[in-house]
């Protein structure tokens, strides 16, 4: 099923959705949002693309397979527990650092964000894995 409208929409929507999913991911610690919803949006972006252009072309344009994406996500979630050990705290304790503190660009980064990033990739990976395997047939 080739639809020009869907193809044009998907081409323009994909970068927008990816950026939006990153915004949702970042604000997730103290505001509504987070890794799961962000991951769903990222997955949705690629599923939309796959609906318009087919699974094969989408796989090529992502370059990384959904399984590997899930693996990266799990790895990040695992790694996020480790900095706490180096600081001598218990496993999974949240550790934070602040960049540009005081200025208006203040950026707080910490291990919970890393964990969320892991969730983000895992969810996106699993979602695309399932959807692609249904759509391929």
């Amino acid at each position, binding site marked *: 099923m080739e639809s020009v409208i869907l193809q044009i929409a998907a081409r323009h929507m994909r970068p927008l959705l990816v950026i939006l999913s990153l915004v949702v991911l970042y604000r997730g610690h*103290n505001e*509504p949002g987070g890794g799961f919803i962000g991951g769903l949006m990222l997955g949705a972006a690629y599923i939309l693309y796959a609906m318009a252009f087919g699974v094969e072309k989408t796989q090529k344009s992502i370059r990384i397979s959904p399984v590997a994406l899930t693996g990266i996500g799990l790895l990040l979630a695992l790694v996020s527990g480790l900095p706490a050990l180096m600081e001598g705290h218990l496993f999974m304790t949240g550790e934070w650092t602040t960049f540009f503190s005081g200025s208006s660009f203040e950026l707080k980064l910490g291990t919970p964000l890393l964990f969320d990033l892991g969730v983000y990739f895992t*969810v996106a990976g699993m979602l695309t894995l*399932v959807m692609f395997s*249904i759509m391929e047939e």
Partner: protein
Amino acid sequence: MLFLFAILIGVLYGAAVYLLLRRNIFKLVLGLIFLGHATNLLLFVAGGLTRGFPSFLRDIPGEVEKMADPLPQALILTAIVISLGVTAFALVLVYRFYSVTKTVDLDELSENE
């Protein structure tokens, strides 16, 4: 409000059981989805239906007391994620089953036993 929720949950459970007992396996998956929704609502009600602020801390004194209990929401979110995963898997499974056997009937499922 509690009464309405009780009715809603009951209706959802009823619909879920009805769908689970159908012979069509796609309806079986729908039944699983309804079952998940009904239970998420049950968690929501069990945590207490209090009106309050969303539980994001700001520097307003006395806000903690007015906050809604965040834990049931966290539980529901987790339960939703899990039922999403299981539903996705069940869909793939049922689809595979359909493409292998070319039938959606549960009765033919138990044919060779």
